[in-house]
């Protein structure tokens, strides 16, 4: 080694210089990291340690017109996991499955939820039973990344009785998240799926709150971080027009065996008092995710409980539509209310190359319009239909609202089926596949290409019950909307109402539906449809009754359909029970022979 002092000093200087340069580089690097990019790293450190846990807001309570609860919130438990990676989630789920029942589908669902929102707690049980919660609390130490949270859970005290209009809630789906109306929503949130819950989602939802938990590197929850907590805001409640007592009574009338739909509403305001579809199902089963067994049993039920027979199902209106024929004829001055037809009813009407039957094989004889309505004479209406002509029946029918929705505040309402213009027949049957006459005959008695929802018939009859203006049915309280759909004089309307009152009078087609102390006016109907017998081609008659009471000052319109109910008077009896309950009167108990229609 060269150990000359001068050289050593020189080398020492070089060493200090190089060493200082390197230390300076380190200092600059620390300065850049800690001082210049401080904010960025702080954000990242906070993001590391804090996890946002959403606190769901209680949904708005839904009340009936008397303040009785239709839908409310009870305390439920959710169980979710804060996972760092999919692998760690699977690991936790695997260990969880050894403690509490966890099906493979639940596992898959949880993994999918995680992939959608990896930074939010992954929901495992959206409605954990008390047993599951207590088991998990017992093994709290084994599952430090678990978040067991109590929160509001939707509950319908009268479940199956109210589900046809109230619907139910559920976790938002991926498809829904893609819709613009759910732009503000995030995966894992609860939304209305059906009925009022869906229609008034914006009102009922409230604003989700959030809290923060501090987690360690393995996602174990270390402590609550109270400072940044944001409380959820309770949503507004919803006041409905529903009369819960009437709704429950209606549901009880259908019982377990009957199949069909019923709507009761106030004809002057459109306030829906009751809306039911039978058979029904329990919406509480859907809260927190419906079990496959239950859902399958609903889907495979031939009576299709998930199909809303009040607003989705369309049924040929049959004789209940004869009022429409009558109104159009009166409006067009084709006849008057006491007019008779050229040919009296002998049980048949010969047109074209066939005999068109009246339901009364013995014949009704010579009738006025009023009598023909009360006795539902087909032969009278065949001739009236021909007089009026198909064109006026179609155009007039559209004006009366048979080709449209009622715009009731239920998202699942479907449009009734009715030809919107004459061209329809050419499109449907080909230019030579039909004749105007036959089509007019069918249409005049509510058959043919005409299928109406229960709610749409209620709307139509609300115009008959009042001054010719149809009310828009509304479940939730709001300003009534009425539209004039017919131009009849007060006398003409009174005459028609009188004719309909005759339906429940002795000799009418629904005499057994009469009420004591008040007059139920209405019209029965029955129409052949394919029966819901799986695997078999069978037909049965759907029974209709649409009416209102009291006949001279109607306060309630009722529209009832009974699938495969046979005769219209059966529907009428059910309707009369509903009306009687609402008006506080009793049906007249008398045994009478009734018509077949």
């Amino acid at each position, binding site marked *: 080694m060269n*150990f000359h002092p001068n050289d050593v000093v020189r080398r020492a200087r070089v060493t200090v210089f190089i060493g200082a340069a390197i230390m300076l580089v380190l200092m600059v*690097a620390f300065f850049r*990291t800690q001082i210049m990019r401080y904010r960025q790293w702080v954000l*990242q*450190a906070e993001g590391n340690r804090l996890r946002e846990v959403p606190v769901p807001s209680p949904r708005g309570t839904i009340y009936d017109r008397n303040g009785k609860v239709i839908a409310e919130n009870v305390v439920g438990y959710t169980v979710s996991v804060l996972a760092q990676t999919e692998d760690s989630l699977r690991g936790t789920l695997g260990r969880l499955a050894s403690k509490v029942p966890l099906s493979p589908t639940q596992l898959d669902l949880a993994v999918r939820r995680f992939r959608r929102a990896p930074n939010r707690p992954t929901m495992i049980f959206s409605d954990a039973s008390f047993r599951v919660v207590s088991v998990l609390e017992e093994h709290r130490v084994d599952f430090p990344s678990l978040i067991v949270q109590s929160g509001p859970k939707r509950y319908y005290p009268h479940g199956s009785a109210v589900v046809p209009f109230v619907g139910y809630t559920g976790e938002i789906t991926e498809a829904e998240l893609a819709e613009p109306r759910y732009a503000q929503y995030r995966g894992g949130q609860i939304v209305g799926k059906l009925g009022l819950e869906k229609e008034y989602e914006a009102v009922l939802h409230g604003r989700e709150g959030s809290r923060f938990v501090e987690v360690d590197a*393995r996602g174990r929850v270390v402590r609550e971080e109270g400072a940044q907590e944001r409380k959820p805001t309770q949503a507004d409640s919803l006041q409905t027009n529903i009369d819960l007592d009437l709704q429950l009574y209606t549901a009880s009338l259908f019982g377990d065996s009957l199949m069909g739909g019923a709507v009761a509403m106030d004809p002057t305001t459109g306030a829906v008092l009751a809306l039911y579809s039978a058979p029904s199902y329990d919406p509480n089963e859907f809260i927190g995710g419906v079990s496959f067994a239950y859902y399958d049993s609903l889907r495979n039920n031939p009576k299709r409980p998930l199909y809303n027979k009040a607003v989705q199902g369309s049924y040929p209106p049959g004789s209940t539509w004869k009022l429409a024929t009558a109104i159009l004829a009166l409006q067009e001055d084709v006849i008057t209310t006491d007019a008779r037809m050229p040919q009296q009813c002998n049980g048949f009407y010969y047109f074209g190359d066939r005999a068109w039957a009246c339901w009364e094989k013995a014949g009704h004889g010579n009738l006025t319009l009023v009598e023909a309505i009360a006795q539902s004479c087909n032969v009278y209406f065949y001739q009236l239909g021909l007089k009026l002509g198909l064109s006026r029946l179609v155009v007039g029918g559209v004006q009366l609202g048979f080709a449209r929705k009622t715009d009731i505040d239920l998202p699942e309402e479907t449009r009734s089926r009715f030809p919107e213009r004459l061209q329809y027949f050419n499109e449907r049957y080909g230019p030579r596949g039909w004749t105007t006459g036959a089509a007019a005959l069918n249409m005049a008695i509510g058959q043919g290409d005409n299928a109406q929802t229960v709610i749409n018939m209620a709307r139509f009859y609300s115009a008959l019950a009042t001054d010719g203006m149809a009310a828009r049915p509304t479940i939730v309280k709001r300003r009534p909307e009425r539209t004039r759909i017919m131009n009849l004089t007060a006398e003409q309307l009174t005459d028609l109402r009188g004719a309909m009152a005759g339906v429940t009078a002795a000799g009418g087609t629904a005499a057994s539906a009469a009420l004591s102390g008040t007059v139920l006016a209405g019209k029965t109907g029955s129409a052949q449809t394919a029966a819901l017998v799986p695997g078999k081609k069978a037909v049965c008659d759907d029974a209709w009754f649409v009416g209102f009471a009291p006949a001279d000052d109607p306060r309630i319109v009722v529209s009832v359909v009974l699938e495969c109910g046979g005769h219209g008077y059966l529907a009428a009896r059910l309707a009369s029970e509903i009306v009687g309950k609402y008006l506080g009167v009793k049906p007249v108990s008398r045994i009478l022979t009734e018509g077949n229609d």
Partner: protein
Amino acid sequence: MRIRGSVSIDWQLVVAAILLSLYGIAIVYSAGQTDIPTYVAGVWRQQLLWLALGIAGAYLVSRASMRMLEWLAVPLYISTILILAYLLFFGGGGGTAASTKSWIVIGGMKLGQPSELAKITVVLMLGKLLSASKGPPKSLLDLWKPALVVGIPWLLIIGQPDLGTGIVFLGIFFAMLFWSGISWRLLLLLASPIVSLILGGVTQLWGSWFLLLLALVIWYKPFPWEGAVFVAANVLTGVVAPLIWERLRPYQQARLKTFLDPSIDPRRTGYQVIQSQVAIGSGGWFGKGYTEGTQKRLSFLPAQHTDFIFSVVGEELGFVGITLALALFAVFFLRIIRVAERASDSFSSLVAFGLLASWFTHVVINVGMTLNLMPITGIPLPFFSYGGSFMLSSWLAIGIVVRIAHEGRGGRHAAGMV
């Protein structure tokens, strides 16, 4: 005033080292303060014990004269080689890679990491060798012995495999050659194959480096033979580099890749260095407070009591704490340079400088690693990282430096007071 047998102490050096050690143990204590406690919570006590042991050892070492150490250099060196060779076959795992065989394990007890002591014995041996001749190594022929002295233990340690300590040996080697007064041209030639090795992965980079080297060699013609040999060596390492790359273990490859870009795999291999930067960066000027670092508390920071302990300093004590630590190191290093400068003989001078090189390499690589300025090699930070062998060997080395200071100019021994 002369007290028989007493050694004059370079107090600046010793106080800097004690402050560094206490600072380090305070951080080791903090590193154990996690929300979910682990065994790390208690290791500061052991570290304190090792410090006491180290100081006692340093005192004893400082009593031994440099002549005795020079005489001991060869036997110490040979026994080091034997122990390292033994470890290759019977060493125990530990540290980052469980396959690393750096521990002496007897009866299941991990006794220590001999490679820490090997740093000292290699410095002693190299010092003895380089001080034996009057001048610095002037040719390749002069270099084969020093290269062998470092090369044998280096290969044994690389074989463990312990890449980090291997790099420290290179630092010691080049630093001591520099201190011996070797021509800078020869030093650069010597270092050039390493550059080739690093650049070998990218053909264009290596090509330009090679052309530059060739031009310099032809232009200066400094050492014709050596020039030719090292140009050839550059070709060789350039070719071998990709092959070595393929032979590297996956975790070693991953470490080098993430050094170039930590974001390629932020959850796994890039995780450590990203979390370390998050910890340091979120410390700001004054830090989050002693023991309050969230990255550390919640275990986001990996190896917070060993390799990444400096990140805890950055997170909890901020830029101020970092500056303080680096300033203490700077004082410590400056004192050793002064000791080496004023040493009584060339052996002592070389030993002091070699020990300095060892510490300096550790500090630069470890601290650089926490900010991703250096690849993760898993070498500890002197006086800070938890680890008994390193604390002990560092203090034994301080004992040697104290002795050199004592014997050198300014020391009582040299001033004729003996």
